[in-house]
């Protein structure tokens, strides 16, 4: 049987998704058996011209968010040429960590990175415009990060930062199934429908009341008990499950950070969590303290709501970029 043509394109990424792929070990050899890699810069050295030259691709995989025109070009090329388009990793599903840059303007991002950070001494910042030196082109940084899923229509979504080994195995199996039967799914998520809490075995109380929001290092964590009832913020209730039958963070005594993005029933992961967690503060004991005291508890407990609750899904939130108001 003919091999399926596979192409992997990059947006704004950290490289973790490539590492996640190699994490499957010998299973990767199966991929080589069923697929011919026509473009994948980290695996077979390739330039964008190579992707442009390919006539058709069976499975196109996109890693990362969209922050420059270059990223969008790759994404559009993949969309145009691929039969099945796969969003691999949280960045391509929801915008991911690079999306947090949306709380700043592009000017302030560059100033911080190149001259204001304590460990840099460079004066001035690189140009904000596209630069061409001889044949090399440095694309311009866009005003904000977008989630690729908002720009094109994906057939398969593989959330996770990075996606766990099981998801990669599922994806390889999916490529095999596609090669044999030619099935093209409609918005298939290689994850679960429910929340992380449904798979977490920690003991959960019926009602959660938090007297003080604790950081992980401040609390003496009981490994059997729900994080939230101990005052440690855990995004399990609003996060899609799929990182394993034993959620990979909570099982190892760390709270869930929400890397699988919102569950299908939630419109906006961060806002949903803010709504529920804010009402858990001093639940049932509000009247014992003054409103000022309550307000102090809240503003000390949630210093950075965006960084905490929108860590992985800011570009798909209702308010998803910095506004410039007085």
């Amino acid at each position: 049987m003919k091999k399926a043509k596979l192409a992997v394109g990059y947006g704004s990424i950290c490289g973790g998704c490539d590492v996640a792929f190699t994490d499957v070990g010998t299973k990767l050899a199966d991929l080589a058996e069923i697929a011919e890699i026509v473009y994948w810069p980290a695996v077979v050295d390739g330039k964008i011209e190579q992707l442009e030259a390919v006539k058709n691709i069976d499975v196109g995989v996109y890693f990362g968010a969209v922050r420059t025109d270059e990223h969008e070009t790759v994404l559009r090329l993949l969309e145009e040429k691929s039969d099945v388009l796969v969003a691999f990793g949280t960045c391509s599903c929801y915008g991911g960590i690079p999306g947090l840059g949306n709380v700043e303007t592009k000017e302030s991002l560059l100033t911080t990175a190149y001259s204001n950070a304590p460990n840099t001494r460079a004066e001035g910042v690189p140009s904000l415009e596209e630069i061409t030196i001889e044949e090399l082109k440095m694309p311009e940084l866009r005003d904000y990060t977008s989630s690729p899923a908002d720009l094109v229509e994906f057939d398969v979504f593989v959330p996770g930062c990075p996606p766990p080994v099981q998801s990669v195995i599922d994806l390889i199996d999916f490529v095999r199934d596609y090669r044999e039967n030619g099935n093209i799914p409609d918005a298939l998520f290689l994850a679960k429908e429910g929340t992380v809490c449904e798979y977490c075995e920690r003991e959960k109380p019926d009602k959660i009341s938090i007297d003080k929001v604790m950081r992980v290092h401040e609390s003496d964590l009981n490994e059997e008990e729900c994080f939230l009832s101990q005052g440690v913020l855990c995004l399990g209730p609003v996060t899609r499950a799929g990182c394993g039958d034993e959620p990979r963070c909570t099982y190892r005594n760390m709270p869930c950070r929400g890397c699988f993005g919102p569950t299908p029933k939630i419109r906006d992961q961060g806002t949903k969590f803010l709504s529920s967690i804010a009402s858990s503060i001093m639940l049932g004991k509000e009247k014992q303290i003054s409103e000022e005291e309550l307000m102090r508890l809240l503003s000390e407990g949630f210093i950075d709501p965006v960084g905490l609750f929108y860590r992985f899904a800011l570009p798909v939130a209702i308010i998803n970029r910095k506004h410039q108001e007085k």
Partner: protein
Amino acid sequence: MMTFEPKITAFLCKWCGYAGADMAGTSRIKYPPTVTPVRFPCTGRIDLSHILEALRESDGVLIAGCHTPNDCHYIRGNYQAFKRITVLKTFLKQMGVNPKRVRLDWISASEGRKFAETISAFTDELRDLGPFVMEQSEVVQ
């Protein structure tokens, strides 16, 4: 010259805020026609996504419910709203949105005058702030 007239979406609890707006009407107290009321069973029912979605279409959102500590029909729904909106304001500040665009007030069923005064004051405040344009990075859904 056309002056800017703000649009306010008001989420009113049916026991106090909405009854207060009713009282303003039956008492024939005048207030600016800038407000679109939405009746909620309790301010505790208001999810933050309701507020943000409303903010997409208006310049400000008013939430009015029963006085703290003991007026809430459901015992502490008003506190739930208070806590949520306090955190929401921190979030709005981070995103560069003026937190004054979301206003929480306690207005009881008998306070028709307070309702009218709140609307007038909020309208003036929003007029100073100017129109709110929700900058969206891409069209979402």
